[in-house]
């Protein structure tokens, strides 16, 4: 496997992204290391090929945004919108992530070992998110499909206006949002959780699916107003 190194002190985000978009041949699956990210925005956004990218340090907004196929490791904290609108592949943040982590992701797996800020998994459309720590308020807001696993606590209004996405929480939930409710864990839920925790890595093997609660939509907002047809 090829090893390629970039240093953001010497090379711009534009040059690195251009390389990642155009210079990686299919099937080569190279390993790329990016040093000194220093909180730069949009690092490794728009990847569309199987490769491994390791970013050694903290990243700014939209790291690995709209990711397809690639596996991106952030050895630090991530700013707003890490792995936003991811389609496939894997993004792993060793530290904590700011707001809107994994927003509107259609596929792939986002792992955040630390905490995630506000609106984690907002408008989720089929992607999976595993958070080792806690998530902020309005997480899973209007989430449509996919799964969010929260090993710590959840902030206020969790799962507000949920569609078909499912949230699993191990810790305390400050409050549920409109139309979100706690449901019984099924056998399928146990299997799904176990699989997601396994995929997230060995450090997640200490969590037991039976300790989690399932949060899903009560579907009472699916139709705009139940009284809409009343006629007086």
């Amino acid at each position, binding site marked *: 496997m090829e090893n390629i190194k970039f240093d953001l002190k010497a090379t711009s985000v534009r040059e690195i992204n251009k390389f990642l978009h155009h210079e990686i041949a299919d099937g080569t699956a190279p390993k790329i290391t990016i040093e000194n990210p220093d909180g730069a925005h*949009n690092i490794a956004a728009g990847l569309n090929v199987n490769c491994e990218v390791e970013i050694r340090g903290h990243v700014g*907004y939209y790291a690995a945004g709209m990711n397809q196929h690639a596996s991106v490791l952030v050895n630090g904290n991530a700013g707003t919108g890490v792995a936003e609108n991811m389609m496939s592949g894997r993004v792993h943040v060793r530290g904590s992530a700011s707001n809107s982590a994994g927003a509107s992701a259609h596929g792939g797996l986002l792992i955040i070992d630390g905490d995630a800020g506000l609106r984690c998994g907002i408008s989720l459309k089929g992607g999976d998110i595993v958070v080792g720590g806690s998530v902020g308020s309005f997480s899973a807001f209007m989430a449509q499909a996919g799964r969010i696993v929260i090993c710590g606590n959840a902030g206020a209004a969790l799962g507000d206006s949920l569609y078909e996405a499912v949230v699993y929480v191990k810790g305390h939930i400050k409050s549920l949002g409109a139309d979100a409710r706690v449901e019984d864990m099924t056998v399928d839920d146990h299997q799904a959780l176990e699989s997601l925790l396994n995929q997230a890595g060995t450090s997640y093997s200490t969590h037991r699916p039976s300790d989690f609660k399932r949060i899903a939509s009560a579907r009472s907002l699916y139709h705009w107003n139940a009284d809409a047809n009343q006629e007086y």
Partner: protein
Amino acid sequence: MNESHNSDRKVSKEESWGYDRSTLDYIQRAAAHGLYEIRGLGAKRKVPHFDDLVFLGASMTRYPLEGYREKCATKTILGTRFASRPVELEIPITVAGMSFGALSANVKEALGRAATEVGTSTTTGDGGMTSEERDSSKVLVYQCLPSRYGFNPDDLRRADAIEVVIGQGAKPGGGGMLLGQKVNPRVAQMRTLPAGVDQRSASRHPDWTGPDDLAIKIHELREITDWEKPIYVKVGATRTFHDVKLAVHAGADVIVVDGMQGGTAATQTCFIEHVGIPTLAALRQAVDALEDMNMKGTVQLIISGGIRTGADVAKALAMGADAVSIGQGVLMALGCNSESWIGSGGQHISAAQDYLKIGTESGYCHHCHTGQCPVGITTQDEFLEQRLRPEIGAKRLTNYLKTVNMELTTIARACGKNNVHHLEREDLVALTIEAAAMANIPLAGTEWIPGNGMK
């Protein structure tokens, strides 16, 4: 005696201005249903508009061009600020963003075919890109909306421009709405929603909150598409002067301003009629903002919201727009509010009964939200959507866009311009004090601009 006395008495019909029949209807409907009215299309009330302006054609002080013989250029280039591949259009008249979901796939195909024929662009809408519209449109603008329905990097890369939608003139500050009857299995699949739900999408973007965030978001979209594509920012007209400045600051190549007369597929009537400012006022504020920042010509401006005719386009360009977008006019060219639809043999078939079924008549219909469009345009119904055949729709729309463009060049030539983009404010006067004040253009026959020098 009494009876004949009564029948002689005149019935009093003194209508109230404040409680006229439409207000009475509104209150009684609210009392019956306990629910606000939702409808399609745009504001129906009369507001100061381009009709309140007229051109000063060439005479002694100006030299006209020959109407039928001399050339008048209409070429329009959008996205020259940062994009390596700006959008090049043959005419400054574009097709506004309207979603697959609001419109049928046949209609999206018809829009693409007509736009390609006349050399202009179409725009996706809230619901993702269909293969029908991508295949039929030479230039396709891909919208990035708060809902992010169907939003994906593959479609981003195959778009010709990207439009970040902050708001829309019919409902600035509001999110999308598509009632369950239009969420058929294909629409649902594209939007990752359960079929048949009443879809109410977000009014805020999921991954950015203010103009400083938007600057980074735009930068991300540029990075993903390798700085090739123009990025438009679309705002509904409210605090337009400041919104345009913030959009420029955030890095937009093109700004789209949609006035309150702009259409919608489904929004609360109170929202359509009472939130936002007229297109005329918004256009002037947008141009002021660009001039204030010395960005006129660097950042292009598209105006929309109630643009219907070549005269409207000419006035918009004279006031400082680079191009216009048309939504409702385009639908009407396809047959919206027409008495009939066109059968496979070219014969007109009456839609009167189907208008009646949804409680309206041709000429008054704004029932896009029902999904039961009698002429097959704003529907996902398998039966109704057959009423708009792509080739017939494309022909009618091509005719309409050509007509509007011919009217535009007719006016430009009469004003002595060999390029429609040379039309200028100086060519216009206003017919009403309101329009003069909003457009910052003198009242006809005077040099008076109400509030001149005040912003």
